[in-house]
């Protein structure tokens, strides 16, 4: 039985209601929290080893410690609930099933860093999560858990829900900040980093929903209890969103360090319909693909997946079977990145455009022999040269598809058609 820290309330009916949440032990950490010094809290979170669960995997405590201690500018927390990374659907669960856990985590973070205003930036499509979150926030205000003198302390905290409007790039921390300020969500050059100059020019912490939701446990049980789980560099648990060609797709919490394929098989029942495994994308569409052999050999943690040439990212695992076409997958994700590129930098906006055209013609059987090397060259021109990493998020996986499944691409070129079309098992929906 896997350790549940974030998803412990998911199967408890009405856990999104404040009274139920409290019965289940919710908001217990606040009493202890206010007896701790803010810098003690930062230390606790640092030592726990909690890393950002939105995709970047940066140490949460370290990020908080970058915020200057000055008092002449207000500080802000932006909760990143933009959840746009394809394959990811875990923050949604938290917002609908256990929103008070997030609020508790927000309070912990704001106390530690000295923040009195938090904006939860939720992607625009998430109507139900927005509604459920706002209900929970309203409950918290009504009970004095948010607003002035929260929990009867001298600490003020306001939490606002801010709705996005359909732009994946607003999940990038500076893109999110720009969007919150009322502009296009175009990422900013870094430095300066948000911790120093962020929202409205003020020191800002940007944290993912899941990251903040881990905080109540850390305060309640102590950093050691969290750090006891997982591996040396990947502490604690993560909510893995597993989808694609598996029997039971869903969100599954697991401790870092277990074998990737063993975990997937255990929780989802393995590849759908008994098909053979072909490939696994371990960390959202922005992560390089792993072959079946690689997926069976690697354990899920930041260091092992990185050593295998990919990334944990947002923990979005997408499984591909023997019936799935990698060239089609490239076409699908390249259209995604071309659609979502903010358009600032030439390598990204033009590079993604170019990749879409190349992927489409490869899939249609009009690919040319030079296309594969062209894709590799153009991908390397797109990496490390842009304002933000959307360009790398396109180029790194694209390169891995061509490198690891080169034969499949070549078959498309030689046969002048997609060998997987029509699907061998007929119509797939249903």
């Amino acid at each position: 039985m896997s350790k549940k820290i974030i998803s412990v309330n998911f199967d408890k009916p009405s856990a999104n209601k404040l009274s139920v949440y409290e019965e289940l032990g919710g908001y217990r950490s606040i009493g202890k929290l206010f007896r701790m010094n803010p810098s003690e809290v930062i230390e606790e979170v640092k030592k726990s080893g909690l890393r950002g669960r939105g995709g970047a995997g940066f140490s949460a405590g370290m990020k908080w410690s970058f915020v200057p201690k000055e008092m002449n500018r207000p500080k802000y927390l932006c909760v990143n609930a933009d959840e746009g990374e394809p394959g990811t659907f875990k923050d949604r669960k938290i917002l609908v099933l256990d929103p008070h856990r997030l609020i508790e985590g927000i309070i912990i973070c704001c106390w530690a860093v000295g923040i009195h205003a938090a904006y939860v930036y939720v992607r625009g499509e998430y109507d139900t999560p927005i509604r459920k979150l706002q209900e929970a926030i309203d409950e918290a205000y009504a009970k004095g858990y948010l607003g002035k003198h929260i929990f009867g302390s001298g600490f003020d905290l306001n939490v606002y829900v801010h709705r996005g409007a359909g732009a994946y790039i607003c999940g990038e921390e500076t893109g999110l900040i720009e969007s919150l300020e009322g502009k296009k969500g175009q990422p900013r050059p870094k430095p300066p980093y948000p911790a120093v100059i962020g929202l409205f020019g003020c020191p800002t912490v940007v944290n993912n929903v899941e990251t903040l939701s881990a905080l109540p446990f850390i305060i309640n049980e102590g950093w050691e209890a969290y750090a006891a789980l997982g591996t040396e560099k990947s502490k604690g648990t993560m909510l893995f969103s597993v989808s694609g060609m598996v029997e039971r797709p869903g969100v599954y919490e697991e401790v870092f360090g277990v074998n990737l394929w063993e975990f997937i098989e255990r929780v989802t029942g393995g590849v759908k319909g008994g098909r053979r495994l072909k490939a696994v994308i371990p960390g959202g569409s922005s992560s390089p693909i792993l072959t079946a052999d690689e997926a069976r050999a690697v354990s899920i943690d930041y260091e092992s997946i990185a050593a295998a040439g990919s990334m944990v990212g947002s923990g979005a695992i997408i499984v591909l079977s023997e019936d799935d076409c990698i060239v089609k997958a490239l076409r699908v994700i390249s259209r995604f990145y071309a659609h979502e590129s903010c358009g600032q930098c030439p390598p990204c906006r033009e590079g993604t455009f170019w990749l879409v055209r190349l992927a489409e013609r490869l899939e249609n059987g009009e690919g040319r022999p030079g296309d594969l090397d062209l894709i590799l060259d153009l991908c390397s021109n797109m990496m490390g040269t842009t304002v933000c990493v959307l360009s790398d998020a396109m180029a790194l996986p694209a390169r891995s598809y061509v490198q690891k499944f080169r034969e499949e691409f070549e078959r498309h070129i030689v046969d002048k058609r997609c060998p997987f079309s029509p699907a061998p098992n007929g119509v797939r929906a249903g």
Partner: protein
Amino acid sequence: MEQQRSFAFDENNERLFQDTLKRYPTKMAALLPTLWLAMGQNGHLTNEILEYVAGRLALSPVHVYAVAEFYTMFHTEPVGRYHLQLCRNLSCTLCGSEDLLAHLASHHRVFPGEITRDGVFSLELVECLGSCGTAPVMRVNDVYCESLTIEKLDRIIEGCRAGVDPEEEPMEIH
């Protein structure tokens, strides 16, 4: 051709707009929430509405226009009574969304980027909706329709034609 009346927030939206302003230290930051209010009232954002919003927030009209064009969910053209947003991203494609797309075309004469002549449906291919566990997924107006099959899709379409809004299923728990 309808006479173009001047757009202004109705009483309820005006109240919501004033509340919105209080949540941000700058007027500019209220832009996205204000555009949501305006789109909620009018269905889509005309140039006149964009100028109205610019005036209310002391922003240049071209800034508001640029923002409306940047974000996919802000409709600057009319949409059908039921705006179908079918996910075309990876997990949904793996689970058969392209078959649903083909079915919408062949059986229901609904095509991407168009409004049906009776004004009932418009179809947009969208990117990942964040519910890949129940792929394939289609958002209908603001409701998630999940775990779609051809049959389920047909039922939803017939329901919409009869004026019955689709309902979101309770969230799956594991």
